[in-house]
C-alpha cells in the first residue's frame, strides 16, 4: 500500500510539473498573451455595442471603451507579465476549467473545450479498442509461436515484417489503402464515420459505422502489431530456452500447453506492460490515422486545432488531456505490476 501511495505522489508531482512547463512554454512564446487578447477583444466588441446605446459622442465612447479594456486587461492579468499568471492558469487546468475554443465548435454548437473533447473521446475509443484487441490476440499467439521456432523461415519472415513496420509510416499505408480500397476498387468509404446522409435505424447505422471503421482499424492494427509481436518474441525467447521448458517437452506435454503454461505465464508481467504501453502509445498514433480518415476523434480535433487558423486554447487543452490519459494508464499499469509480479510486491 505504501508503494502505491508513493506512486500516486510521484505521478501527481510529474503531472503538475508537466502542466507548469507547458504553461511556461506557452507564456514565454507569447501564445498565452495572444489567447487572452482574443478573449478580451471578443468581450470588448460586446461592450462597445452596449455602450453605443447610451453614449452618443464618439470621443466619449472611445474613452469608455478604453476604460472597459483596461478593466478587462487587469481582470485577465494582461497588464502584468505572463509569469504572474502562472499559478492561476495552472490551477485552472488542474481543476479542468479548460476554457473556450476560438474557432472550433462541438457538434451541438458549444465552444467549451471540455464539451468538444468529451464528444470526440468515444469516437477515438470506437476505433482504438477493436484494434487493441486484434493486436493483443494476434501479437501474442504469433509472437510466442515465433519464440519457439527461432531461426526458422517463418520466424525470419516475421522479424522482417516487424522491422519493416518500424520503418514504414502507417499513415502512408493508410493513404494507399484509401486509394486502393476507396478509390480504385471502390468497396470501402474513403473517410468520415457515417455516410451522408446517415442511414436510419440503429442496425443499419451501426453497420455503416463498422464499414467506415474497417480501414482505420486495420491501419492502426498494422502499426502496433509488428513491434508488439517482436517484443513478445524477444521476451519469451529466454523463457523458451529454459531447462524447465525442455523438461516439459520431454514429459510429452502438448506444444500448446507448453506455450501457454510454461512460456507465456512466467513472462506475463512484462508482456502485459508492453501491451498497455502499446495501447497508450496508439493514442498518439491515432492522431495521424484519424487525420487521414477524417475520423471525428480527438486526434482529428488536434489536427484541426493546429491547421488553418490555430486554436491555441484547444491545443493546450488537448496536450494536457493526452498527457493525463497517458499518465493515468501508466499509473494503473504500475499498480497492476505491483500486484502481478511477486518480486516487486516484496
Amino acid at each position, binding site marked *: 500500500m505504501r508503494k502505491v501511495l508513493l506512486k500516486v505522489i*510521484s*505521478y501527481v508531482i*510529474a503531472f503538475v*510539473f*508537466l502542466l507548469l512547463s*507547458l504553461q511556461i*512554454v*506557452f507564456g514565454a*512564446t507569447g*501564445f498565452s498573451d495572444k489567447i487572452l487578447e482574443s478573449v478580451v477583444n471578443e468581450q470588448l466588441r460586446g461592450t462597445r455595442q452596449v455602450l453605443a446605446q447610451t453614449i452618443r459622442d464618439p470621443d466619449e465612447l472611445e474613452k469608455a471603451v478604453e476604460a472597459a479594456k483596461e478593466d478587462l486587461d487587469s481582470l485577465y492579468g494582461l497588464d502584468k507579465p505572463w509569469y504572474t499568471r502562472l499559478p492561476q492558469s495552472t490551477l485552472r487546468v488542474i481543476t479542468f476549467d479548460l476554457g473556450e475554443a476560438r474557432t472550433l465548435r462541438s457538434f451541438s454548437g458549444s465552444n467549451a473545450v471540455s464539451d468538444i473533447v468529451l464528444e470526440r473521446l468515444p469516437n477515438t475509443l470506437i476505433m482504438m479498442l477493436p484494434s487493441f484487441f486484434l493486436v493483443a490476440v494476434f501479437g501474442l499467439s504469433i509472437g510466442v509461436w515465433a519464440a519457439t521456432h*527461432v*531461426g*526458422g523461415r517463418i*520466424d525470419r519472415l516475421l*522479424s*522482417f515484417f516487424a*522491422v*519493416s513496420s*518500424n*520503418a*514504414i*509510416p502507417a*499513415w*502512408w499505408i493508410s*493513404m*494507399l489503402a*484509401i*486509394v486502393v480500397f*476507396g*478509390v480504385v476498387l471502390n468497396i470501402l468509404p*474513403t473517410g468520415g464515420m457515417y455516410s451522408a446522409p446517415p442511414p436510419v435505424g440503429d442496425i443499419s447505422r451501426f453497420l455503416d459505422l463498422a464499414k467506415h471503421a474497417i480501414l482505420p482499424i486495420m491501419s492502426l492494427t498494422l502499426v502496433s502489431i509488428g513491434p508488439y509481436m517482436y517484443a513478445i518474441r524477444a521476451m519469451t*525467447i*529466454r523463457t523458451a*530456452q529454459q531447462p524447465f521448458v525442455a523438461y516439459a517437452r520431454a514429459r510429452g506435454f502438448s506444444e500448446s500447453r507448453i506455450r501457454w503454461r510454461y512460456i507465456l505465464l512466467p513472462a506475463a508481467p512484462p508482456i502485459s506492460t508492453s501491451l498497455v504501453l502499446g495501447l*497508450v*502509445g496508439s*493514442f*498518439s*498514433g491515432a*492522431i*495521424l490515422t484519424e*487525420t*487521414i480518415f477524417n475520423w471525428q476523434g480527438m486526434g482529428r480535433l*488536434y*489536427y484541426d486545432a*493546429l*491547421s488553418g487558423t*490555430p486554436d491555441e486554447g484547444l*491545443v*493546450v487543452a*488537448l*496536450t494536457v488531456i*493526452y*498527457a493525463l*490519459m*497517458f*499518465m493515468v494508464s*501508466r499509473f494503473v499499469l504500475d499498480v497492476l505490476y505491483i500486484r502481478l509480479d511477486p518480486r516487486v510486491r516484496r
Partner: protein
Amino acid sequence: MVKGIMRTIFSSFLGKVGFFLLLAFGIAAVVVTVVFPPDFGQRIWNNPVYWADYPKTAIPSWWPEAGGKAQHQVLIATTPTNMTEEGAGKTLEYRFAVGISSQSDPKFLSFSISHLQFQDVSPVIAVLIEQDGQFLPLYSYVVPDRFSGEKSPISRYATEPFRVQLTSDYQAEGMVKELLSGLRNRGQDRFTAVVRLNFASREDSVEEVRFIAGGESFGWLGTDDLGRDVATGILAGLPIELLIGFVVAFSATALGAVIGTASAYFGGWVDLITQRVIDVLTMVPTLPIVMFLVFAFGANLAYIILFLIVFGWTGLAIQIRPWIMQIQAEGFITMAKARGLSDKRIIVRHLLPQTLPFLFVTFTFSIPGAILSEAGLSFLGLGDPSVPTWGQMLQQGFRTGAIYLGYWWWILAPGLAIVLTSLAPALIAQSLEPYTEPRLRRG
C-alpha cells in the same frame, strides 16, 4: 569491433541490402548537397513563380497512360550558346533542342526571360526556329524603354519573368504544326529553337532564358498541383531526411549512454535526479507533447531535431543503467578506482567500450524512428517550411485531395522514399541482432 560488425552485417542477405541501400543514399545525398543551391527550399521549391512554366499534376511520362500525351519540356539556359560582339553591342543566342513526340504535337510553345538589365538602349528579343540552316521567325519584341526618371542600369522582369505564348494566334500555330509534321516525316526527333537577344551595350545582361514545349506528362515522377517536379523534390529532401535521422539518432544515443552510465557510476543524488527526470520524460506521451512544442516554438528544423533528441534518449538510459551496475560489480572497476584513475577515464576507457556494439545497434535502430517522427510532424503541418521534406510533400498531396483524385505518383513516390531511407538502417540493425544477442546464433 568494426570488423566484427561488418562481418555480421555482410553475413545476412538483408544486412547487405540495407548496407548498400544506405551507401547509395549517402552518396546521392552528398551529390545533391553539392549540386543543389543551399537556399533551394525558399528560392526554388516554395516559389510558385519558378514553377509557373511547368504543367500542374502532370502524370509521369513513362507511365503507359501518358503514352498518347505530349511530354512537357522545360529547357532552361543561364549561359548563351553563342555570343557575338559587334561594335559596342553584342548578340546572345540561346539554342534549345526540343524533342518531338512521334504521336502528338506540343500543346503550345512558349518562352520566358527573367531579369534583363540594360544601360540605355532597349534590347531586342527574337525567337526563331532553325530549319536546314534557315531561320523561321516566330516572334520579336522590343523591351520597353526607360521610364521617365529611371536610372541606368535599367532592370526588367526581375520579380516576374517575361512570358510569351508563341502559338497563341492561329497563324503561328499553323506554321509550327506544318514544320513539325515535315520534320516528323523526315524521321527527325527534335528541332532547334533559338532565342536571340540584341544588346546595345556589352554590359547588358540576362539571367535566365527558358523555352517550353507544352504537354500533359512530365519527367520521372510527374508534378504536383503547383507544377513542382516531384522527382526534384525527392532528391532535394534526401540529405535533409538523412541529416534528421543521423543527428537525432546519434545525439539521442550518445546522451542516453552518457546519462545512463553516469547515473549508474556515480549513484547517490546524480542517480536520483536522472531517474526522476527520466520518469517525467517517459510519463508523458511523446507525439502530442512534441507537436505542442513545435507549435509553440515555431516549425524550425533545428527545434524539431532538438525536441526529438530530448524525448529520444530515455529508453537507452534505462536499458544501460543496470548493465553498467553489473559491470561495476565485476570488480575491475574497483581496481581501476584503487589505482587512482579519474572518473572520466574509467567511464570512457573501461565502461563504455563494453557497451559499444549495443550502442551502435541502438543508434542504427533509432534512425528510422527519427525519420518517421519528422515525417509525421511534417504531415500534420508542423514541418519546417523553408526546407522541402517528404512528409510535407505528402501533406500537400493529402490536403489538396490527391488521393481522391488519383494523382498516385504524388503520394507513392515520397512515401516510398521515406520507407526506403528508414528501411536501410533498420535492416542493418536487424542483421546485427546475432552480434549483440549471441544466444540467437545457434538458430
